């Protein structure tokens, strides 16, 4: 027997209303390999993994473990078979501690009392062994996304899982955390654990994966050895055409000042210090300005202050000559501000609303969409279809799909479509391409550049240096709540890194 498969998913078919999410898909996972799963947004990756994890039941097909056919009816079955999963959108209990979350469902009890000591020891030992630093007594609602993910990983390890599913683990991580995660995954592999790894970042696949299975629109495209392929080939397999990785930008005249921020101070929720300290800068029409920095240096609060989600403590914000420092969100929206938020589930979408309802989230009251207080459902439908077409938002039932059931990337595309289509004077885009496939990223980048070419202002907040370098006309580096560097896009990433780490700084004046 040449191939030692630990898991085989054979001819899996899974249908949702209006769509075949998985259509006769076969995936074979070798023991001790890192197997990447690649495909466009909505190709069916998360669905396939959820079938393996027992969250969905396939209509047809079979699953084998070690050559034996198994039936996985729910996550408990999966757990018994040693299968664990880190979900695309984490599933932790926010008001529980880290330790509680890890042992939830497999608690040791004695006379009805929880046995914490043993559990704590085991968790700490695991965390030590794999370098997964967590604070076991912190509340999940208080810890960073990176740590939440470590908690999810510890959950799998605590259950002694040996088949580990990672659904887009890197989408929410900082570049440093991504490196650490790759290291951890290699460690798992050395121990003989088998890993299924979903990502849209081809460089990550090239870096850690042994083989890669590609899905397209719910169908199986093929499985390749990573060693003998290239990024270009993979992306072609996935989207069916060549993908441009570089953004072409023509030079445009810098226009008038659209956004002007002076001595802005925003309080922090986490500590007594201010998160944003006396920040001043301008954004002009026809330019993309990027705020670069390591996560947690005040970018989030800066955006909240600008968009009105948090009150501003001091300073002023002027949009197109109008003082909006204390204006409510609605007024900012009407005055020409769009916002692609960092957290699509918290702010970006009402998950229980349909796609079309979400697409008019800031516009439902406009003349076009209402008729004496009644929703003009015909217009809403027409508008939604237009956005869905032009931004290629894929879902089971089009405009009436409930947002919750859409794939993560398509949720993101819906938000971007909504925000760009409002033709804002200023587009505040926070991690806009998070969770998008390479084809979609290419398209969104092109749209952002088009916005700029049309003389609008774009303020981009991104942790991905590659994106920062290829899109921005001007880069502002944020460190500990202050702007510590200003560059044009010819600066080297190494130089940028020094400023981001706080090793160097310069005076930044607006």
């Amino acid at each position, binding site marked *: 027997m040449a191939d030692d498969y630990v898991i085989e998913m054979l001819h899996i078919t899974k249908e949702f209303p209006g769509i075949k999410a998985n259509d006769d898909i076969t995936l074979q996972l070798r023991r001790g390999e890192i197997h990447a799963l690649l495909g466009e947004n909505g190709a069916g990756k998360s669905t396939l993994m959820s079938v393996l994890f027992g969250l969905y039941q396939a*209509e047809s097909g079979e699953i084998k473990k070690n050559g034996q056919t198994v039936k996985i009816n729910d996550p408990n079955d999966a757990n018994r078979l040693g299968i664990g999963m880190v979900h695309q959108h984490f599933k932790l209990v926010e008001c529980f501690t880290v330790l509680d979350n890890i042992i939830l469902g497999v608690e040791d009890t004695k006379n009805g009392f929880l046995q914490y000591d043993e559990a704590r020891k085991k968790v700490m030992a695991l965390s030590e062994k794999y370098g997964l630093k967590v604070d076991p007594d912190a509340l999940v609602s208080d810890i960073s996304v990176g740590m939440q993910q470590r908690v999810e990983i510890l959950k799998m390890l605590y259950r002694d899982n040996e088949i580990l599913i990672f659904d887009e683990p890197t989408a929410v991580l900082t570049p440093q955390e991504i490196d650490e995660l790759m290291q951890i995954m290699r460690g798992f592999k050395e121990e003989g654990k088998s890993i299924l790894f979903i990502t849209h970042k081809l460089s990550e696949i090239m870096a850690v994966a042994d083989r890669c299975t590609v899905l397209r629109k719910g169908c199986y495209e093929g499985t390749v050895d990573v060693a003998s392929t290239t990024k270009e080939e993979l992306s072609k397999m996935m989207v069916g055409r060549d993908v441009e990785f570089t953004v072409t930008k023509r030079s445009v005249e810098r226009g008038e000042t659209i956004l002007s921020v002076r001595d802005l101070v925003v309080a922090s929720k986490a500590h007594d210090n201010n998160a944003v300290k006396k920040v001043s800068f301008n954004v002009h029409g026809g330019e993309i300005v990027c705020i670069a920095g390591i996560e947690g240096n005040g970018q989030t609060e800066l955006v909240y202050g600008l968009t009105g989600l948090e009150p501003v403590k001091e300073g002023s914000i002027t949009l197109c000559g109008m003082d909006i420092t204390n204006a409510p969100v609605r007024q900012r929206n009407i005055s020409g501000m769009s916002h692609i938020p960092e957290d699509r589930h918290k702010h970006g979408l*009402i998950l229980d609303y349909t796609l079309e309802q979400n697409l008019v989230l800031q516009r439902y009251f406009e003349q076009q969409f209402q008729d004496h207080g009644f929703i003009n459902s015909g217009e809403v439908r027409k508008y939604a279809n237009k956005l869905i077409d032009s931004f290629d938002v894929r879902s089971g039932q089009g405009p009436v799909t409930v947002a919750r059931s859409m794939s993560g990337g398509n949720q993101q595309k819906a938000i971007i479509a909504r925000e760009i289509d409002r033709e804002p004077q200023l587009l505040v885009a926070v991690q806009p391409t998070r969770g998008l496939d390479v084809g979609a990223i290419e398209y969104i980048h092109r749209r952002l550049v088009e916005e700029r070419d049309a003389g609008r202002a774009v303020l981009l907040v991104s942790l991905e240096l590659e994106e920062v370098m290829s899109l921005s006309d001007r880069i502002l580096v944020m460190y500990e709540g202050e702007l510590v560097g200003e560059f044009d896009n010819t600066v080297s990433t190494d130089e940028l890194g020094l400023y981001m780490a706080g090793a160097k700084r310069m005076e930044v004046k607006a």
Partner: protein
Amino acid sequence: MKKNNQMLVGIISSVISIAVGLLFGFILLLILNPAKAGMGMGTMLTTAFSNMDQFGKMFYQAAPLLMCGLSVGFAFKTGLFNIGASGQYTIGAFFALFGAIGLQLPWWACLLLSCVGGAIWGIFPGLFKALFNVNEVITSIMFNWIGMYLVNLLLANMPFMLSAYYGVGTTDRTAALSDANPSAIIPTGGLNHIFGNSSWINISMFIAVAVAILMWVILDKTIFGYELKACGFNKEASRYAGINANRNIVLSMIIAGALSGLGGGIYYLAGTIQYVLEKSILSMGFDGIPVALLANSHPIGTIFSALFISYIKVGGSAMQPNFSSETINIIISVIIYLAAFALLTKIIIAKFLQKSDKKEVKA
């Protein structure tokens, strides 16, 4: 097609929950009073249909229940738990009666007043929530008590409101409308002829159903409803969208209050009952909670759940001489309680359907 399916699952699960509730009620009856259990259950289930009078009574009671159910359900949709329906109902009843007896207004003006009264009582929990982030459950419970004692206090100091003033010697209840102001009694609209001269029936059920339809339109078809539901589903995203969540919380509580208040008005303006100064909170408002739950807060569904609960209650009160009122109340509560498990049953049925679907595919 999927929507139809979901509707079906919703209806099936409600029916199953009701059946389970009835079964448990019967078992309980067997335990409490085995000899008369069969007869008792029979009375409970058949009374409402035994004669036109009782049939009319079912509608008469369903109307205020429906209003309270709408009130609780409407607040639910906005993400609020209006446990204060009872207080709003009481204040609404007082406003209506004051309009009828004190101001000698016609019935429709009294009903409008009852809405105003309920709305006023809904504002407070709404404002406290919006301005100080005080949980609306706590405030509305307190306002239930405040409302009840306030009404008692006011009535005790308004001798012209009481039945003693009209020469019917009691000071513990308001005057009968037939003595004080017959024009304040909600008209029967000729229904009494159809319902065999039932003393209970009037047009209040039509009013309540019309309001239910209105609520459905508001929630599903208007931009106001869009905003309210958005706040209920995801408050943060509503803020992001520029929706004024605080304003909507207050408005939602005002509307919920007005609905309960109207319930109070409808009930006491029927002319068949007088408001009795009591020391316990009226249960009608609380009954609104299972009415809303049973219907999954859907305004149209609420019509049917209100009718069901009224039906059980009418049957229950007919069991009176044979069973103690405590026993009856326990049985009714058990039935309502289990019926409110509709949601749980829904999940189970959905799973079941999914499995049988799969089998069909395989076959």
